[in-house]
């Protein structure tokens, strides 16, 4: 059976004066239709680069270093997006995989009306669509995301932050994509607006049975919307499992640390974990496990050898030599 999107050992590095920044360094995952996958990681861990690599929206200094992105294009034969010609690739953008960008505030062009920008996307992929039909479709999308269709004729600066975010979601839906990548869709918003947007995205996803990839630094946000969660650290996935497992039984010490570093509003007021040190420099990451310098469980093996990313349980992938055992309390001795 074909999966919708299959990323295999994807590697993408940025070339700089000091050497290669290994932003995406061997990422693998599958995505089924209708599924919500969350990627969580700290700033600079390469999570945004993953999405940009899949859509091939990279700056000039980015270089592919191997791997495949297999996308099921509905006629039985998956295409490898990495090896497509640029003109071919354009057909898959937005129609196959669309994106909700990190900074929704800035992803609308200030000099065009919002409606026209969405119409442009539709007519680009379906050139035969007359403008009025496309406009009708945009009006429907606006209703779907909870915006007044009359706002189509307005410019982005006349929108509030939450409205812009909704318009961007409507734009992402405009070509009926099979996958939507949402990169920090709510970071700049206040909690109440964030809550509403998250609910809407989730509802639309369920309604249209779309596959989604959520990218965020905030585990709580990811937990609200994803079926499966991947934890990314320094250019690699360290753990991937369904969201309940990740929360109830994290096996990677980093995942464990993240779970326990999060203050809770109403739950028990527990002592928070501090992970010592800083994430590694991706120009020269540690030789062995990339988490080794900060890991309380690290030993000689971790220093020497990078753990392989394997399926340890059904659907539970892990890259760690010394997984956290059930019930174990990991002591991070920070300062």
């Amino acid at each position, binding site marked *: 059976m074909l999966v919708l999107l299959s990323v295999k050992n994807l590697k993408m590095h940025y070339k700089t004066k000091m050497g290669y920044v290994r932003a995406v360094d061997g990422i693998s995952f599958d995505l089924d239709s209708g599924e919500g996958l969350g990627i969580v990681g700290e700033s600079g861990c390469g999570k945004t680069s993953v999405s940009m690599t899949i859509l091939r929206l990279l700056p000039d200094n980015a270089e592919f270093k191997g791997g495949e992105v297999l996308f099921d294009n509905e006629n039985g034969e998956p295409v490898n997006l990495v090896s497509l010609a640029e003109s071919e690739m354009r057909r898959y953008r937005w129609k196959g995989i669309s994106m909700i960008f990190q900074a929704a505030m800035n992803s609308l062009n200030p000099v065009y009306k919002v409606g026209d920008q969405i119409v442009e996307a539709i007519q680009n992929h379906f050139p035969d669509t007359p403008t009025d039909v496309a406009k009708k479709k945009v009006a429907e999308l606006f209703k779907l995301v909870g915006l007044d269709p009359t706002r189509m004729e307005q410019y982005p600066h006349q929108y509030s932050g*939450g409205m812009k975010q909704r318009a961007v979601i409507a734009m992402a839906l405009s070509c009926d994509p099979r996958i939507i990548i949402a990169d920090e869709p709510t970071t700049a918003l206040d909690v109440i607006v964030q*809550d509403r947007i*998250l609910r809407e995205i989730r509802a639309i996803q369920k309604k249209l049975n779309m596959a989604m990839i959520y990218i965020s630094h905030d585990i*709580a946000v990811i*937990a609200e919307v994803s079926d499966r969660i991947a934890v990314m650290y320094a250019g690699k996935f360290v753990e991937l499992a369904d969201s309940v497992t990740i929360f109830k039984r994290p096996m990677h010490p980093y995942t464990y640390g993240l779970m326990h570093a999060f*203050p809770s*509003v109403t739950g028990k007021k527990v002592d928070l974990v501090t992970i010592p040190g800083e994430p590694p420099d991706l120009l020269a990451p540690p030789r062995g496990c990339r988490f080794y310098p900060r890991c309380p469980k690290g030993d000689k093996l971790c220093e020497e050898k990078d753990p392989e990313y394997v399926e340890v349980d059904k659907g539970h992938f892990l890259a760690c030599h010394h997984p956290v055992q059930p019930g174990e309390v990991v002591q991070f001795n920070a*300062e």
Partner: protein
Amino acid sequence: MQNESVVATDTILKVENLRKLFPAERRLFGSVRYFVHAVDDISFEIIRGDSLALVGESGCGKTTTGKILVGLYEPTSGKVFVEQEDVTPLLYEGESSARKYIESTYLEKFLSMSEGDLKRIEGVEGLYAQRFADLGKNRSKFIEEFLKDRRERVGQLRRRVQMIFQDPYESLNPRMTIYDIVAEPMNIHDVGTIKEREERVADILASVGLTPPETFMFRFPHELSGGQRQRVAIARALILNPSFVVADEPTSMLDVSIRTGIMKLMMKLAQDYNMSYLYITHDLAVARYMSNNIAVMYLGKIVETGATEEVLHHPLHPYTKALLTAVPIPDPEEKRGEPNIKGSVPKPINPPKRCRFYNRCPYAVEHCEKSDHPPLKEVSPGHWVACYVVSGNAG
């Protein structure tokens, strides 16, 4: 009388009816047509050793409040007391208005009096009169001395109140070394010799966890990570031993794995240096960890305040409730309800005379629209709410 003595023992900061209006739109000839009511008539106090978290969404006036307290903005009205002293004229008035004040209140009177009369005046005025007489009724000398004295007092005050800023990438001057940044307050207030400054900087850097200090002292901010920069910012705020620090979302720009380290450090320093925080944040969970009192702000007003645990576990104001339900919970199995709130945050430009929360409130009744914004009422000991419906005054 009794009340006064209580105040005299522990209040470290007291704010009375603070209000700040920003001009929003001007007419053709400069008169202001609309005002943004950024902070609108708020009062609170902080007892020594305690701290207060100011929570709210962006634009609710929490940062403005913090900036007023360190003298970055001048309040439109209201008073600020630091350790029982009314510092409003010191913090916000320039020297010229102080000079005018002293001239109009004292000098004109003194000049017409004889030396003997001057010596007979009592109280604060008497002290001035004494001084004036001692200076041989020299007007300019007296003013000069007065201003010098005032400058001294302003300096003292500035040293007692410090601020930590949100963005560790922007709040450090990129062209200064860590040493220069941390020592800057000493430099401004001319404290200590260069040698003493070096020692003090090394000490403080060590105590914020930048060890060994000598490896950090002569580096530039861009060579440090976000967490380290925020530590530098904390060191800088603490170098003059303030008794009170305004912390404006110091951890919101940091990653989770680093954030808790900074939070713990700040807690520890508060104990070691015996100081209080006004902790400004949008994150209720962080507020819970950082302070024992909390005040929830909405459109320039405090709508609910009390002990943190009490407010978070028994929220009364509909806005606090909505805010609490909207916080995502890092547990996929726990399903929370939908926040019970309508619409979106309006801009606080010339707000109508009614409850600020009226048009978003699911419980609003007629009384809420007819009357002014509700005053804070104590509904249980130490727990104050500004809501007609909750306090049972909805008419």
